[in-house]
């Protein structure tokens, strides 16, 4: 079944099906055309929910509100101000997107369910306002007299638009939106949405701002819902508040979930099912609300991937077809030999509610040097990495990167400045392929904007191609070339670690922090890791390595700092560390009063 589905999702097959659908419907009766147009509007609404929930992992329980802002906005503009349809639709989307942006303001500061409750509240307020603001919305009596194709009162540029013509217009809007969404999802924007959804830590570590990404998802999603509402107003010609009650929000959610969150073709399936089922099945219409409730209650358990999971392949998040395009690799300036050190951590203290994880720790690193951070478990190595990379705010102390204090900056701000880290347990996006995960590393380097990404502009494709080729080179180096198109979550631990290091390397950092990169790697994998680290050193990066594997460190590092219980107990070279009695005591537990007799 999946092969059929995949075949049908090809662009030309979709185009043929779309045109065939439009042609068949144009010949049908008025009522059939009306329902078909409803179906198309539902596709837009489902896309809107899917973008927000399926990709960005945020929940809106107030989509009826966004839909309503678009519908009333479009209706009033057309009826009272004579604004032509295309402009009114654009305005509907814009109005709604403003509301979405305002609502998403706390994103990034609170967990998703706060925003879910907020959108639920917004949806209900909108309904109340639609009922009571009689002068604008007509109140419970509704708003009539909207130019409508059914009543033959709608015209565009002097040409009357009937139901069939209106269907073609909405069909063109839906087809274009779907194509743009498909391109957007496969760009660095889509990867950022999904990365924030799946692993906020990984997203932050490659320079993705959690708050900005979530806000952009809300804004875009609201724009789509507003557009759907804009298309809805002329279709029905009359707007009553009951069309924008909680039921509509729930219906939009049900369509997207049953269709399959994260799948674009799934949204078409979901919209079709819930447009035609109540039409055909009287029993369903009668128990609609209860059925929606039951579906929401169990869908995540029974059919987590929705209908799309049965019929189509999972979505992909890179424009692999662009890789063949000729595009010059961005020229990498050799990093300057600066006189000031690259990184200076000064007197860092980290106090977790009484537990002193770091006590007055200082260290310094120059470009092109590898510093090992060594110490027994719980000595504060990872805490220090977390402080430098912006995951923790230190209680006291400064972190100077190229002379600027970056302590207390957010993780994504730190990584945008060129400090990239990996994690003690690899943090990847498990649903991405190896290639997509590594490509995620380049996020901070992308220059093309939202429109370029959605329209597959020349610049956008060439930029994607350049990074895809860099990713390929890095995958070669890491020995992962053969696994490039495998879903990373299904691959062994060692592969996930190497992919994470490759992701960090592709982001072209100036300072890289690797938290136990060798843990759990096989001999061959260790070798690949060594090759990657040497290449980074040749590129004159500063490298901090947290590691227990002494043989691995031996021929790699230029200096060692040893931590014990949050304090620096040794700094110097590897040889000196081996002979240091305090280090031996910390590692092997020899009491300091009785020095070991060599």
């Amino acid at each position, binding site marked *: 079944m999946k092969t059929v589905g995949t075949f049908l999702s090809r662009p030309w097959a979709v185009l043929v099906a779309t045109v065939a659908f439009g042609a068949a419907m144009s010949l049908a009766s008025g009522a059939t055309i009306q329902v078909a147009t409803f179906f198309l509007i539902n596709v837009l609404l489902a896309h809107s929910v899917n973008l927000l929930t399926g990709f960005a992992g945020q929940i809106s329980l107030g989509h009826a509100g966004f839909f309503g802002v678009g519908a009333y906005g479009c209706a009033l503009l057309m009826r009272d101000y004579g604004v032509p349809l295309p402009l009114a639709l654009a305005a509907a989307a814009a109005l709604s997107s403003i509301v979405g942006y305002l609502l998403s303001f706390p994103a990034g500061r609170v967990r998703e369910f706060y925003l879910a409750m907020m959108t639920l509240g917004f949806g209900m307020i909108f309904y109340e306002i639609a009922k009571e603001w009689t002068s604008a919305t007509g109140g419970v009596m509704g708003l009539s007299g909207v130019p409508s194709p059914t009543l033959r009162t709608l015209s565009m540029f002097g040409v009357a638009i009937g139901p069939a013509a209106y269907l073609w217009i909405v069909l063109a809007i839906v087809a274009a939106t779907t194509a743009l969404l498909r391109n957007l999802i496969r760009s660095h924007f889509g990867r950022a949405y999904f990365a924030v959804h799946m692993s906020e830590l990984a997203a932050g570590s490659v320079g993705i701002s959690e708050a900005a990404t979530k806000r952009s998802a809300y804004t875009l999603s609201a724009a789509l819902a507003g557009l759907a509402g804009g298309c809805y107003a002329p279709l029905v010609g009359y707007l009553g508040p009951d069309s924008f009650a909680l039921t509509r929000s729930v219906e939009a959610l049900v369509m997207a979930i049953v269709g399959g969150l994260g799948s674009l073709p799934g949204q078409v399936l979901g919209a079709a099912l819930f447009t035609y089922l109540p039409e055909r099945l009287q029993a369903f219409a009668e128990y609609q*609300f209860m059925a929606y409730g039951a579906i929401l209650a169990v869908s*995540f358990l029974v059919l987590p991937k929705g209908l799309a999971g049965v019929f189509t392949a999972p979505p992909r998040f890179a424009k692999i077809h662009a890789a063949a395009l000729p595009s010059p690799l961005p020229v990498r300036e050799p990093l300057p030999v600066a006189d000031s050190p690259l990184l200076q951590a000064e007197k860092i203290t980290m106090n977790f509610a009484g537990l002193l994880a770091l006590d007055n720790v200082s260290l310094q690193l120059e470009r092109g040097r590898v510093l090992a951070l060594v110490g027994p478990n719980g000595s504060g190595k990872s805490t220090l990495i977390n402080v430098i990379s912006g995951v923790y705010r230190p209680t006291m102390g400064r972190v100077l990167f190229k002379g600027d204090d970056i302590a207390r900056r957010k993780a994504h701000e730190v990584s945008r400045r060129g400090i990239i880290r990996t994690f003690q347990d690899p943090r990847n996006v498990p649903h991405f392929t190896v290639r997509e995960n590594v490509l995620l590393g380049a996020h901070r380097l992308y220059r093309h904007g939202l429109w370029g990404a959605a329209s597959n502009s020349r610049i956008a494709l060439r930029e994607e191609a350049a990074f895809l080729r860099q990713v390929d080179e890095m995958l070669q180096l890491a020995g992962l070339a053969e696994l490039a198109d495998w879903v990373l979550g299904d691959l062994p631990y060692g592969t996930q670690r190497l992919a994470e290091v490759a992701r960090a390397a592709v982001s072209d950092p100036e300072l890289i922090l690797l938290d136990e990169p060798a843990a759990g790697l096989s001999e061959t994998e260790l070798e690949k890791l060594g090759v990657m680290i040497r290449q980074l050193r040749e590129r004159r990066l500063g490298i901090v390595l947290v590691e227990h594997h002494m043989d691995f460190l031996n021929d790699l590092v230029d200096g060692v700092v040893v931590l014990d219980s949050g304090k620096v107990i040794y700094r110097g070279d590897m040889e000196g560390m081996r002979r240091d009695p305090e280090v031996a005591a910390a590692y092997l537990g020899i009491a300091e009063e009785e020095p070991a007799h060599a």
Partner: protein
Amino acid sequence: MDFALQLIFAGISVGAVYALIAVGLSLTFLATRVINFGQGSLLMLAAMVMAALLASGMGIVPAALSALGLAAILMVGVEAVAVRPLAQRAGSMGWVVSTLGMGILLQGFAAKFFGSQAVAFPSVLFSSEDFITLLGVRLSLQYLAVLALSVVLVLLLELILRRTQWGRAVRAVAHDPELASLMAVPVRRVVLVCFALSGVLAGVAGLLVAQITGTVDPAFGFNLMVLGFVAAVVGGIGNTFGALVGGIAIGVIEKLVGGYISTAAEHGIAFAVLMAILAVRPQGLFGRSELLKA
């Protein structure tokens, strides 16, 4: 002035009910980090069932107990169907959707079973005309009784959480369920009791609001749930005292806006408060921000 005092008094009274709803919402949040997005339907169902039982001739006390018992049982059902099976899923998407689904299912069921029209809820605590005059202000006895009951229940719960063995167990589970279970706290039972109690609190709140409004319909609860959530957020989720302050503040603001500006603005003001508090101080007035461990 008299008008303002009337409004403030009514606001304090309904605000105390919001606090009761907020405490019910936070109780499940304490135990499982889950907020029941279908809580509104439990408020509605308790009031609906009580109205139906009273109409069929049952006494006040057995009718109220049956309604509250039903709410408790339904809440345990919500835990079993919509919360526990989704515990393994990371993030909140799963449980937000599934608990909302349960709420909608119950609302649909009520609409089918009792009809979607509003049902009269008889005066049980005094009549709506009874009042006493205090310092020259007419205080409705119904509002007074609702206020007293809500405040007593909220404070009682706070006392239980702070002073009893069971309260300590709840706080241990809230802090770290795995650790609590290693310390021989019966986590499973604590969670179930929290859900059942949350259902009872929702039920009481539903009965009290229905007493004031005089009618109840299937869509009655959702608004109240959001107001309860706003109260909880203003006070800091999980903070009982904060919920009381938050609830009363919102009740008073709402009534004043409704009385002096418009009833349409009354609906919007709590929402504006929610937006403002999330933008300025998302952990609430009395809450502490959570430390994220990487």
